[in-house]
């Protein structure tokens, strides 16, 4: 029954509930699939086969008794950023060595509480710093999609949740957890033809999620459909006393919003997102998206977010600043790898020089610099002001419309090494996605078309704070209109 791996999460959960197949069967099917394709794609860095089958058997027992949660028996992949009890959790950094935490992140616990089955840990950019998965200590993840030029160039799946995106896109799990600090869910989702949503900041607990930039990090899913994404998001999100920035409000029923349509909704199209040098086919796709929403009964309004151009620089100050402090705990003293050398200072230096990759070191240095005496006001403080302005821009715009439609990325997936030499060009990939993080807003990416190279492109819907519902409504309409059914050939 190898086609079990091609099911959507919703279809699989229904099939399990109806006992059309057992959790052990579908779990084994995924383990077989991983066995077959992971060595080429490198999405999983840890496969927890035994644990998965054990969880599956427990699920089958519960299903047999007519019990079970909302994801009972459904096999999922977990981004390595989430701490999973007793299982290696390293954010794909060498500095954490073989660290296996004695605790479970709230997000993953929520999934297990609903009966989900863990297949393993998914590759990512080291500490989520990257847009191509090339910074992982465990090597890059390969995008299952190829250009149609016959050259067979290996492409990146985007990042930092590249392992999550590739695993879902290549049927190595039903859905995956991911995290988004500047676009790390939405960009890889777009690059692999998947759906990804970053909820409102504070919806999903950060407890047990290895921190990159605390004020920007937010967990969310990568899934095959908007409905699957809604289901995953509902379960991943929760109010959590262990995270002081967690929102203490109930999680709505978002799955019902997916098919609700957009009739009467006002959708804003921000003119500042029409950036110089944007490929014509991205522009065309955006217009297509507008047309689809119009047809579905939405009103389209032209809006302005004047501070957009400052978002990327502000992001690349705030995120490294927080990271430089968040990653100070990786000093080799209590866990992970220690490289002893000379005195204490030398041991710190060697441990961190050996343990962190180049991109992480670059960001830690940027972060330390922008917070240092004499530069704080010019960089960090200024960036915080910009951040406030950007949030105000959104507030203003959302008084005239319900959600915004933009492209997810300025390009389709690129090849390995194509941008790795130039960090700034790499950072430009986040240009449409960082604003939602800076303002804490929910944003979804939905696959909408293939470009002329045969690669998927995504459209992004940004909602008001706490209005994931609109993201799912608009996303559902786009998904239906685009009828994106292309699959990568493996």
């Amino acid at each position: 029954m190898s086609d079990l791996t091609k099911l959507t999460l919703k279809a699989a959960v229904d099939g399990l509930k109806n006992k059309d197949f057992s959790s052990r069967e579908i779990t084994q099917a995924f383990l077989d699939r991983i066995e077959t394709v992971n060595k080429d794609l490198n999405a999983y860095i840890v496969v927890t086969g035994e644990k998965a089958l054990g969880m599956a058997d427990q699920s089958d027992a519960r299903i047999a008794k007519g019990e079970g949660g909302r994801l009972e028996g459904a096999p999922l992949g977990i981004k390595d950023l989430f701490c999973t009890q007793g299982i290696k959790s390293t954010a794909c950094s060498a500095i954490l060595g073989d660290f296996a935490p004695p605790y479970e992140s709230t997000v993953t616990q929520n999934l297990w509480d609903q009966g989900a089955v863990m297949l393993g840990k998914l590759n990512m950019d080291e500490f989520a710093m990257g847009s191509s998965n090339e910074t992982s200590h465990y090597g890059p993840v390969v995008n299952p999609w190829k250009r149609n030029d016959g050259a067979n160039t290996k492409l990146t799946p985007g990042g930092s949740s590249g392992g999550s995106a590739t695993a879902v896109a290549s049927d190595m799990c039903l859905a995956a957890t991911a995290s988004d600090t500047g676009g790390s869910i939405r960009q890889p989702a777009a690059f692999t033809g998947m759906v990804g949503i970053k909820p409102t900041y504070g919806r999903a607990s950060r407890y047990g999620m290895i921190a990159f930039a605390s004020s920007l990090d937010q967990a969310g899913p990568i899934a095959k459909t908007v409905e699957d994404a809604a289901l995953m998001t509902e379960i991943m999100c929760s109010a959590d006393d262990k995270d002081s920035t967690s929102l203490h409000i109930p999680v709505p029923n978002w799955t019902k919003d997916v098919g609700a349509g957009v009739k009467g909704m006002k959708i804003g199209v921000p003119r500042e997102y029409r950036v110089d040098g944007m490929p014509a086919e991205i522009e065309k796709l955006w217009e297509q998206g507008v047309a689809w929403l119009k047809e579905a009964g939405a009103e389209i309004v032209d809006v302005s977010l004047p501070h957009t151009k400052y978002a990327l620089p502000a992001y690349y100050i705030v995120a490294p600043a927080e990271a430089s402090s968040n990653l100070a705990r990786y000093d080799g003293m209590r866990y992970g790898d220690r490289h002893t050398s000379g005195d204490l200072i030398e041991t710190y230096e060697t441990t961190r020089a050996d343990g962190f990759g180049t991109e992480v070191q670059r960001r830690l240095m940027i972060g330390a610099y922008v917070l240092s005496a004499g530069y704080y006001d010019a960089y960090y403080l200024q960036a915080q002001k910009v951040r406030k302005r950007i949030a105000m821009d959104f507030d203003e715009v959302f008084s005239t419309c319900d959600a915004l439609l933009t492209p997810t990325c300025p390009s389709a997936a690129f090849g390995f090494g194509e941008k790795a030499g130039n960090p700034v060009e790499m950072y430009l990939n986040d240009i449409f996605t960082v604003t939602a993080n800076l303002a804490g807003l929910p944003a979804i990416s939905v696959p909408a078309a293939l470009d002329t190279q045969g690669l998927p492109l995504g459209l992004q819907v940004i909602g008001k704070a706490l209005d994931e519902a609109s993201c799912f409504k608009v996303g559902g309409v786009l998904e239906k209109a685009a009828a994106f059914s292309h699959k990568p050939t493996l």
Partner: protein
Amino acid sequence: MSDRKPYILSGATGDWEVVMGLEVHAQISSKSKLFSGASTSFGADPNCNVSLVDAAMPGMLPVINKYCVEQAVRTGLGLNAQINLFSRFDRKNYFYPDLPQGYQISQFQYPIVGEGEIEVEMEDGSTFIVGIERLHMEQDAGKSIHDLDPNATFVDLNRSGVALMEIVSKPHIRSPKEAAAYVRKLRSIVVALGTCDGEMAQGSLRADVNVSICKPGAYEKFLETGDFGVLGTRCEIKNVNSFRFIEQAAEYEARRQIEVVEDGGVIDQQTRLFDSETGVTRSMRSKEDAHDYRYFPDPDLLPLILQPEWVENIKANLPELPDQKKARFASEYGLKPYDAGVLAAEADKAAYFEEVAKGRDAKLAANWVTQELFGYLNKFDLDLADSPVSAKQLGGLIDLISDGTISGKIAKDVFAKMIEEEGIAPADVVERDGLKQVTDTGAIEKVVDDIMSANPDQVEQVKAQAAEGHKKPKAMGWFVGQVMKASGGKANPQAVNEILKSKLGI
């Protein structure tokens, strides 16, 4: 600021004055830490009071302990200080093995408590005012133990994350004695509030002492202008943990600075350590080596917003503070300010005194408590809790004085017996040892007559002195002494005086 005497240190080139400001770290009396649920119990085995948050495990997040916030607010109110309804936690970034996060969570820019002031009493009864700059909450670090192994340092994280209040004074302290008195006063306030146990030996209360020197007149100019430039460069002595050490360290440091300056040197802004063995301070790091702490708002924590009603409620339920108690002791019992201050400074002493004074002559009670009892306790370095004489017993002794059963002098002997024979009732001592005062005038008269007839020369001398107009002839004292001696000290001194006067015709 009554009778505040300038403290002058004379150097080779002239007189110098001292200016000091203190940063006192007071551990909040809380069962759990500032941002985690781990226990704060003292003396636990190393690394046993450590939560995942305290060890800075990946993905762990701080959650503020509301009880600690309440104690900081209570302390702020006790310092007559502004309570800031908006405050914020910042990260102070530096690397050290006993700082697991690689940063200390503190309140840098927006502390929970702003400016306040307290009045401090000196032993000579003079008082002075110290302005409080701010009070903020922060995490303590762990402990590095360097002497267990020649090649390794051991780290104990039990203190890591324990809640501290840092109380920063203005540079209003002008002598080493004042510095100790200021910390004594702070301690009495936090102990009365119950916000810190004040155990200095355990490190619950410790001071960073900032010392600078200046020429007479400079400080007054500073007060006028607020310009720190007119004062000397300061050095900070870290983590001094007893009143005596505070005084010693400040004194040494001031003299060291005078010596440096008078030898033509300049004072480097330094952080120094006090060695209590040698009584010397030595440099730990200079300003050039100072860390750039890269403070920024902790993104894991939201700003702390207090509701005014919550603060008002805390204010309405504060216990009586040492100053209020002192004022009450002065007005209710008619005590002198200094005695009132001594008795009010610590809750247990105040309670003891009030039990002794209840329904009795309060001034007499205050004298007995401060002079005899505290004198005895201080001499043997005992706490009030170890006192061999209970408040009830001491009250009984005072009753015996007041009703004329014994004289004040005999009472001291009885008190000594009460210490010797712990728990014995004063009346039993008097009864057993036959110490009851003799008030029978007939018996006293007989003794007086005997002495007068045996010493005619002395009688003549007294009469002669009286005739010359002396109201209190010197030889009179000799007679009193003889009578008291003959009666074994039991004769009522007033009666002895009256009888002597009439017999000698004074």
